[in-house]
């Protein structure tokens, strides 16, 4: 039973540390951030994805879980105080096991672009694999990123998301205890 697994050991300090990691990741796209708080989430949920959910999700937000993570639903229900939503198209947070069609997630409106989804996507590696070059706010110079686990047409799909700025989703890639954030403001090219 996954419920027996604890959440953050120190809910206040660990959530703060995780938040700062995500804030830094979002502010400096492509720069990997490590979650250092000890955490034993139920499989197949990884440490970084679990920490982000514990930090940001509660009863005031909606979370969509891909079926792949059904085993973690009770754990999240207990520690986040939220019932996973069956509706992927309106959820504020989406945890997917493969890149969904980004246009099917909440995009926000021109007046309220913040009402868009934050997508969490576990990948195999954030140090090796397909290579991209990132440009945009947060980056002084073009910054490289290597990822294993994204679909081959990712750059084109991201370009479509970025093109709708200020609308669009924000993506957090998670590999084990490490995460990289790609805000919608980011333009990404294949390197």
């Amino acid at each position: 039973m996954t419920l027996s697994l604890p959440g953050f050991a120190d809910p206040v300090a660990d959530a703060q540390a995780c938040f700062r990691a995500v804030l830094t990741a979002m502010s400096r796209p492509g720069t990997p951030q490590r979650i250092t708080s000890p955490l034993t989430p139920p499989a197949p949920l990884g440490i970084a994805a679990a920490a982000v959910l514990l930090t940001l999700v509660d009863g005031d937000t909606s979370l969509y879980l891909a079926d792949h993570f059904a085993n973690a639903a009770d754990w999240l229900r207990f520690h986040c105080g939220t019932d996973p939503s069956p509706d992927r198209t309106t959820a504020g947070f989406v945890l997917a096991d493969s890149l969904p069609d980004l246009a099917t997630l909440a995009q926000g409106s021109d007046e309220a672009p913040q009402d868009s989804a934050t997508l969490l996507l576990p990948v195999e590696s954030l140090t090796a694999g397909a290579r991209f070059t990132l440009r945009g706010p947060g980056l002084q110079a073009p910054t490289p990123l290597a990822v294993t686990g994204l679909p081959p047409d990712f750059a084109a799909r991201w370009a479509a998301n970025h093109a709708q700025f200020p609308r669009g989703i924000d993506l957090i890639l998670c590999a084990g205890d490490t995460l990289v954030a790609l805000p919608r403001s980011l333009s990404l090219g294949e390197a």
Partner: protein
Amino acid sequence: MTTISGYNFAYLDEQTKRMIRRALLKAVAIPGHQIPFGSREMPLPYGWGTGGIQITAAILGADDVLKVIDQGADDTTNAVSIRRFFAKTAGVATTTRTDAATVIQTRHRIPEAPLTENQILVYQVPQPEPLVKLEPSRAETRRMHALAEYGAMHVRLYEDITRYGQVAISYDYPVMVNDRYLMAPSPIPAFDNPKLHQMPALQLFGAGREKRIYAIPPYTNVRSLDFEDHPFRAGRAPHACGLCGADTSYLDEVVVDNAGGRLFVCSDTDYCETRRDAGHVGEAA
């Protein structure tokens, strides 16, 4: 960990912090766009920096070193009061040294010393809406931002130029962030505007009473509105600091006697002290 009983670390409850943290992340993802948030009544009044305080409370960790300035000075009463609030509720270390701080909360100034990638600058914002003097309705300004309909602001600035030969806004001078959103930089003097551009530190803006949060990520383009034939120019008093001799810093004008005597001194007290410690001497020192 907490040094005042009955309250959570950094005063705010965790649910409130999560709400603010979610807003902050969206704010960073959409540079310059105002995100409405469920601002709480804080134990300090609206207008005293409740927006900045809520952001600081939501980001602050036990390892942070906090600096608070008002008008550039660490020792102004409101800066003292806010610094004490966090020392009391979060038990964090505080400093007056710009280079020693990880989080700097400010009202009306950007420090003179360049900030680094390891710092976060939190602004207290009284009025987050840059279009407010042109259009008082928030329903309408929200629409104008959605359409990037900023012509009225350019017209307003141009009217200034035709009447006064220059733009007559000397603080809270509007900027374009990332070539998309018109943004109020809070009432910093226009002198500070160039520092907003491509700053290595993350800049977060909180307006408590107006219930808005916005952000400028590090290394983001921030352009003060201007015209090709009338480029933006930032003013400062044409003097050197009387204490440290600095001739590029922003100066306060102090009336020193009843005969109209004036002394000009750095508004950034840490900058001034650091220079004096390094042996720089002004004419009045």
